[in-house]
């Protein structure tokens, strides 16, 4: 492992997302802490990539062009985040509430931190190989190598002219491989190493953040409960992989693959943000956060388009019934509409057919 790249990994995978997240949280008037800024900073990055990346892929621009445009946007958001942080760091609203920790809080926190470190170490020193990487990871390798996006057959390495075929068309509308290629290029890391060894740790931090925030949402002021929830969740992940199908299996085995990221923290993030919307149904800013998360889900995988849309539809309907507020459903269903746009584009690119090879998604 070339550890000389560690400062660049920290910059692109930790610092930049955190400052972008500070900007996002400030604009959307969210509580600013490490978990919210890191998670929603990454979500913002992926949402931006979905918005600009899909048209650029369709227009067959070079990867270099996308890199420049994406970097300018992320750089602008990051600088804005840094300036806001400098300006507001002494703001009383941003001060971390000092709370006296009881011994049970410390006990649970120690378990949580130890459990997470143990998991991170295991994911670092172990490997799981998956044949799906012959498309997901190799797409990123070829993007860096050829400076084109999805115009190379990852199975052979030969150039192609039509990416609206078979499985490759899914990557056109969910260009997660472009993100892997982007961070690989910006840090000078081989795309396979980036996916398998570096991004794993960054994405597991997103899992940690979303679970902490879920704990914060449902257990509010109890540090013991928040830490216990995260610890128990990670323990269940490690000991509860009953087959290779459930979300926890995908989380541990191949989180760098878009569909696995959806299972790992995308779906929990949708539940998280929707829970916030339920508490403040008239707050449009929480809805915008939901749309950012949905766009990130679409970026990860066409499965994200399906699941994100299904979740917005189901959660919106459930909340509208429970709160007796139809407008609440409509606001959440805008997330469904976002997914519908990409779903429609995907179907149209497939000649109006639901079928693409054996299955749709």
């Amino acid at each position, binding site marked *: 492992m070339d550890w000389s790249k560690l400062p660049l990994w920290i910059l692109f995978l930790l610092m930049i997302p955190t400052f972008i997240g500070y900007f996002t949280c400030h604009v959307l008037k969210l509580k600013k802490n490490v978990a919210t800024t890191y998670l929603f900073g990454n979500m913002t990055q992926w949402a931006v990539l979905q918005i600009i990346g899909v048209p650029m892929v369709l227009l067959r621009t070079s990867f270099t062009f996308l890199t420049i445009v994406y970097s300018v946007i992320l750089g602008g958001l990051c600088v804005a985040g840094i300036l806001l942080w400098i300006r507001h760091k002494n703001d009383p609203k941003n001060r971390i509430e000092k709370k006296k920790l009881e011994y049970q809080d410390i006990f649970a926190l120690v378990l949580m931190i130890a459990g997470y470190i143990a998991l991170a170490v295991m994911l670092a020193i172990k490997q799981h190989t998956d044949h799906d990487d012959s498309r997901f990871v190799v797409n990123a390798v070829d993007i860096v190598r050829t400076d084109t996006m999805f115009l190379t057959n990852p*199975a052979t390495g030969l150039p192609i002219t039509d990416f609206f075929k078979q499985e490759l068309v899914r990557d056109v509308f969910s260009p997660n491989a472009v993100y892997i290629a982007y961070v690989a290029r910006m840090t000078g890391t081989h795309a396979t190493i980036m996916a398998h060894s570096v991004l794993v740790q960054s994405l597991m931090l997103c899992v940690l953040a979303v679970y902490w925030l879920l704990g914060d949402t449902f257990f509010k002021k109890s540090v013991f409960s928040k830490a216990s929830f995260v610890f128990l969740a990670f323990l269940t992940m490690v000991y*509860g992989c009953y087959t290779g199908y459930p*979300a926890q299996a995908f989380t541990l085995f191949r989180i760098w693959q878009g569909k696995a990221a959806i*299972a790992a923290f995308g779906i929990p993030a949708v539940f998280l943000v929707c829970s916030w919307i339920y508490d403040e149904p008239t707050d449009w800013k929480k809805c915008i956060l939901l749309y950012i998360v949905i766009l990130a889900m679409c970026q990860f995988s066409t499965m994200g388009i399906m699941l994100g849309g299904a979740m917005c539809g189901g959660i919106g309907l459930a909340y509208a019934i429970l709160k007796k507020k139809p407008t609440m459903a409509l606001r959440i269903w805008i997330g469904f509409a976002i997914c519908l746009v990409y779903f429609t584009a995907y179907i149209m690119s497939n000649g109006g057919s639901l079928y693409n090879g054996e299955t749709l998604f």
Partner: protein
Amino acid sequence: MTLPEAVERMGFWISRYAGESGVFLYIALAAGIYLLLFSKQVRIKIMMPIVLMAMVVLNPILYQILFSKIIYWRFFWILQDVVLIGLALTDLCGRFKQGWIRCLCLLLCSGGIVLLGTNVFRPEQGRFIDADSPYKVDPETREVCEVILADNPHPTLIISNWLFSETRQYSGDIIQLFGRDGDGYIYEMDPAVRAFEREFRFGNMSWEEVFQYAMEHNFTHVCFYDRYQIDDIAEQYGYECLAVVGPRIIYHQLPG
């Protein structure tokens, strides 16, 4: 697809998802019921949407129309068993007033998870091996690729079996005749390549035919998964043995 067939297929996928024991799936269902009954916040914000979505996902009529055409079992991810188990057990632990009982409850819950489950990182689970390199591809793949790339930094390769899924992960400079598209994934194959691939992978081609093809199409390397060295045949077509890597034999094209 008839309705009984749809129900049968749904049952097939549920049992496949749950596996032989599926105990954690049942624990997740129990956790969901607990949260429905005892946690108002979770009931409203998470469980009711999950119940509503489950009514859609587990609907045989919708399976007939839509879910049979997609990767159905991925919709079970909406169940989020890790979240439900975590929330239920944490809620249970938090109901005790005394701190030491809470800690004890947490330890008991953790012990229960450990005893009922299996550590996925244990070697006997067959899911993980020790990381061989930062690339985290199979060690055999890495060794084969290193030999080939040391010989030619831009090789064109015919390679058999599962290594073709990983060689291009190690280096995008490797061009292959076929990869996982041979299994029907990724991208459609050229019919002529498909014909060769079918014969080659199922052992229906003679060594002479393989090397003839490789020579005609100017492949720089051919890698077999075979015990037999066939140097004399290879030499007739301008190839020689480059290296033997485990059970793999790598031939490279002679210059000129």
